[in-house]
């Protein structure tokens, strides 16, 4: 494939512009300008891919040098010293040989990352979500900590709500608004490692910080209160533990409540089966309804807002544009909303 002179430099400029437009986009129509830029580039400058021919030629000559170097080490006596340290020589040659491929991969990755970012943003637009500005991430965490057991006894430091979306769900029987949050925390552990200093072995303690993320949805649920159905983590201040009649449910979840009748009324057989069904799709699922009738559904899956899979990228502007301007469903979010609808359906009162 033939590229124009300065193609890579033009392409970098284009990608910077595209990224800037994508970051500033507040609605789907804002992407039209972005796709116009991409299509104009393709018609004027060439394909949206980096010209790696110079890098590949460089790698070829490095390889040729390696072959020449090997022959020289055996044929030229003065080179025998270099052969004694062959592992250093070939290590350096290998690093130099890999560099062009690494750079080529990195550039291709940039195109993929920008495409992924655009798609993620469009998913938010298509599903009626809006990113909320968080004035104090730690402050919001403290507010959630006060309201829900999910946020208690999790992590040792760096606890905050990093991202917050607001959304509205419209189902066959109910309409409700919800918030989708991403919760970050760090678990600190101390690891003792033996260290030999001369002939003496001492132990040194290292502080190891491991970051974790939990994801979840908050909404109003006025049909019950003071009840938690937990599969993993958090700290819940309820008087009693209750078991359902389902062996499978009891293996996955623990139920905490102040009043067993509340738990029994909420966990109807259809609701128990709904929990078992949703537990197949979400890891470490916890559901709590606090004293104010607010429900928190938390899990470890980080792909709630992912669609079926991106098929195209900005390298194919027309196909990618069709993909972006079609409706991008998010199966996991839809599943969660259906689950909430089931909980509401079997807990409301028809008369």
């Amino acid at each position: 494939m033939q590229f124009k002179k300065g193609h890579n430099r033009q392409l970098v400029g284009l990608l910077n512009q595209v990224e800037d437009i994508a970051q500033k986009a507040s609605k789907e129509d804002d992407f039209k300008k972005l796709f116009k830029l991409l299509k104009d580039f393709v018609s004027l400058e060439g394909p949206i891919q980096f010209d790696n021919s110079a890098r590949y030629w460089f790698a070829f000559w490095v390889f040729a040098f390696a072959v020449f170097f090997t022959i020289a080490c055996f044929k030229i006596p003065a080179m025998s010293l270099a052969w004694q340290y062959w592992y250093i020589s070939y290590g350096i040659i290998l690093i130099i040989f890999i560099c062009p491929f690494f750079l080529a991969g990195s550039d291709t990755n940039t195109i993929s990352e920008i495409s992924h970012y655009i798609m993620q943003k469009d998913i938010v637009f298509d599903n009626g979500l809006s990113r909320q500005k968080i004035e104090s991430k730690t402050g919001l965490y403290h507010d959630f900590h006060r309201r829900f057991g999910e946020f208690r006894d999790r992590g040792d430091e760096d606890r905050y709500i990093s991202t917050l979306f607001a959304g509205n769900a419209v189902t066959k029987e109910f309409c409700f608004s919800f918030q989708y949050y991403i919760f970050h925390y760090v678990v600190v552990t101390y690891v003792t490692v033996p260290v030999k200093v001369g002939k003496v072995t001492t132990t040194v303690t290292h502080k190891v910080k491991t970051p974790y993320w939990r994801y979840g949805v908050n909404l109003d649920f006025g049909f019950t209160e003071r009840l938690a159905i937990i599969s993993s983590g958090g700290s819940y201040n309820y008087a009693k533990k209750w078991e359902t009649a389902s062996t499978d449910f009891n293996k996955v979840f623990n139920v905490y409540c102040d009043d067993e009748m509340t738990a029994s009324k909420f966990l109807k057989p259809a609701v128990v089966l709904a929990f078992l069904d949703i537990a197949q799709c979400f890891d470490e699922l916890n559901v709590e309804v606090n004293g104010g009738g607010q429900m928190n559904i938390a899990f470890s899956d980080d792909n709630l807002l992912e669609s079926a899979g991106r098929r195209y990228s900005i390298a194919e502007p027309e196909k990618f544009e069709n993909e972006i301007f079609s409706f991008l469903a998010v199966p996991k979010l839809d599943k969660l909303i259906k689950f909430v609808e089931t909980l509401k359906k079997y807990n409301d009162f028809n008369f």
Partner: protein
Amino acid sequence: MENLIIPAAIIAAILTLSGIIIGIRNAIVIAKNRVQRGWADVIAWQRKKVQLIPVLEQAVHQYKQYEKMIMTKITALRTALQQLDQGSINYEALREVGKKTNAMIATAEAYPALRSSELYVKFMNEVSELEDNVASAIAIFNRNVECFNNSIQAFPGNLVNGMLNKEKAVETFTDTAAVAGIDFKPKF
């Protein structure tokens, strides 16, 4: 000291084996109790229909020309519900309640004037959710039966059951009316 090692090992082995046998025995008891509780839940959900019948009676009362026919079906359903016993598993009685429920609803559905009644619509929504819960309770019950049967039939539970519990396998509930409508019948 060395003379004590073998007797200590034998005692430890016996204690471990006893612990395992006790654990398996208790697991069979727990599984059986869960089957019974599952059945009790099915009956409890079926019996909730008794609370809904007055709502249908109230809706029907306005339509004198249909009242007699539907009241006959309601009486038959009440009688069938009374045959249900939370303490003993009786699939025939459960199937009878299902038949009588369907007969009552089919009779009510045959009258358009009744169908348009707001009270009747709410009644049907409630019955629909109730039926969903009954079906779910039956699914949970069947799964508990499967777990119980596995615990007494699979090794080593079958040995412990043969020696201690002496429980028999429980049959799962099947809706014979639904099965009759399917041509394919697997051979077990």
